[in-house]
């Protein structure tokens, strides 16, 4: 009887583990539509669309490794504002790359703290999320509003 109970518990545990680790299924979105809506909804300094060369320098990542992307950032070097929506081939790769963005944010916090503390604050309050195979980054005055726009874009 004990053996049967143990067997049943094991089976249930396996199902639970499988259920918990199930990959997040998300709809496809157009990154450029999301960044555009965010830039239009929140106050930003002059923003520019990042080129593949810019992205290589900013994140040391190659856009060939993305499935889709849109990165906009403040043209002036004095502002930390930035919005990035990047689709990786799968959720695992997106999660692995989250560390790259965490490191960049920390590095920029230390740079901006010296001469532009208000920009360092923006970086400290930045929203960095992984949703499905997407990475979302928002460094701006209203990062929570930017995140809501990103999340809502999957429901459209």
């Amino acid at each position, binding site marked *: 009887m004990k053996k049967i109970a143990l067997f049943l518990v094991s089976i249930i545990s396996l199902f639970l583990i499988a259920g918990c680790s199930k990959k997040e299924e998300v709809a496809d979105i157009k990154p450029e539509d999301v960044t555009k809506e965010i830039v239009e909804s929140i106050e930003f300094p*002059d923003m520019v669309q990042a080129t593949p060369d810019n992205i290589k320098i900013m994140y040391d990542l190659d856009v060939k490794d993305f499935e889709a992307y849109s990165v906009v950032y403040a*043209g002036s070097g004095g502002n930390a504002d930035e919005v990035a929506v990047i689709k990786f081939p799968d959720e695992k790769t997106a999660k692995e790359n989250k560390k790259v963005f965490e490191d960049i944010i920390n590095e920029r916090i230390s740079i901006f703290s010296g001469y532009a503390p208000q920009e360092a604050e923006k970086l400290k309050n930045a929203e960095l999320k992984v949703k499905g195979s997407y990475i979302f980054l928002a460094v701006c005055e209203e990062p929570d509003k930017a995140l809501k726009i990103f999340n809502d874009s999957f429901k459209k």
Partner: protein
Amino acid sequence: MYKINKNNKNKKFSYRIDMVVLSCVVVFISCFVIYMFRGKIEPGSTKPAGQTSTSDTSSQNDSVVVKDNSQTSTSKTESSKPEGPIVNPVPQSEKADFSYFDNCVFIGDSISVGLTAYNILTPDKVIASIGLNISKIDSEKISTTNGKLTAHEALIQKKPANIYIMLGSNGIAWMSNESMISKYSSFIDKIQADLPESKIYILSIPPVTEGREVAAENPIKNTSIDSYNSELLKLANDKNVYFVDINTALKNNLGKLDTEKAEKDGMHFKKATYDIMLDYILTHIAQ
């Protein structure tokens, strides 16, 4: 006709030598005739067809200047460092084409970052990072198109004909002029030693807005900027490198940066302000 030898072999040999000489003369005359017609050499000229007369050369050069200013600027920059004393600040010159920047690299801080961030210049033309100041110029690794390198390492790789340096805006609020100029001087020495063919231009640092002068956090006075820029001018003269005074080009009548030309911080540029700066550089190139 021929010398009669007892040895038949010798007779044959003499006959062949004459034939060879005759053939050579015929070939030479034929070549000369073809050469004259194809080379279109003017009568009396002794130049080979591969070369042209003086008038031809000058007309070709003129056409290059008209067609492509970048080639013109390259030939200008090949002249390397000035041999005699130079005139600083660099006086106004005929405006160069934007392609002049193909042979340039800009080194600087967050203000120079804007050159590439606004996609005005391609990232390979700008070696700059947000927090860069002159005290960190030898040690700070900057993200470039060739990976993370110090400014000096990146310059060695790129070997640009013209190097523009704009450093000082980061640091002027807390570093002494002496300290900054001393570091600047060492940096110039290193570049001159390793890239003797490159022209070095020191850019004066730009003014700030009136608002930035009285800001609660990190205020910067335009008088401090002016004082630092005069030290930069002396440094340029000492090192026999060029000095381009972009500060004057960006100042208003009150000696400050117009608010509409700057971002909220009163120091960094709006995109249009970079156009003013680059336009000034294109009209102030050392001859």
